[in-house]
């Protein structure tokens, strides 16, 4: 099973600040890495698929990069509604697996 390690565990930002969230895979997942946002009490929401492609309706302040084992989700300018837990997920090999999540808080 492919292990995904996310860092940091928590990050606190002021409105308008940017953030880089990391996801490292225990083996190559090629480009098959997605990022999800989960707000409290809601289902996960697909933000990024295939490492760098924004899903439908996702604001341009969210971007993804990376390949093989190292990936980054960048939030360019934090909005209050971005307070959430962010998960990476690979679909390169069965079973699909998730990282442990990064919690984004507002200062």
């Amino acid at each position, binding site marked *: *099973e492919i292990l995904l390690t996310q860092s940091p565990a928590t990050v606190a930002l002021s409105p308008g600040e940017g953030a880089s969230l990391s996801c490292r895979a225990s083996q190559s997942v090629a480009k098959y890495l*997605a990022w*999800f946002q*989960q707000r409290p009490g809601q*289902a*996960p*929401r*697909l933000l990024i*698929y*295939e490492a760098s492609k924004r*899903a*439908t309706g996702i604001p341009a302040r969210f971007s993804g990069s990376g390949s093989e084992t190292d990936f980054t989700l960048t939030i360019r300018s934090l909005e209050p509604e971005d307070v959430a*837990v962010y*998960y990476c*997920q690979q*679909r390169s090999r*069965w*079973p*699909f*697996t*998730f*990282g*442990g*999540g990064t919690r984004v808080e507002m200062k």
Partner: protein
Amino acid sequence: EVNLVESGGGVVRPGRSLRLSCLTSGFKFGEYALAWFRQPPGKGPEWVGLIRSKVYGGTTEYAASVKDRISISRDESTSTVYLHLDSLKTEDTGVYYCTRERRPNLDLDFDFWGQGTLVIVSA
């Protein structure tokens, strides 16, 4: 509008079985793979299994943690997908989500999610 509505959750005793349903609408059901994910209280999501579209034989894949106890099926006539889980354990407790892949024919990025149904396994 794409819609997925799960049902069948509740409190179940350990060792019993459960069947969850996911009624879908707003898209060509037969063309899409559908997956189930679950999320234990206070933890991250976990992929449970998926069923491919009929074009790809309606075949299934399951997570190792449930592989011997799970069955996912689909009913093309009612656009419904089912999850059957036997020999329930307390660690099966969580919110179960039904999801649809982003594009048809084995895209396997899941961008439509239901609201989830809560399963509590407890004596």
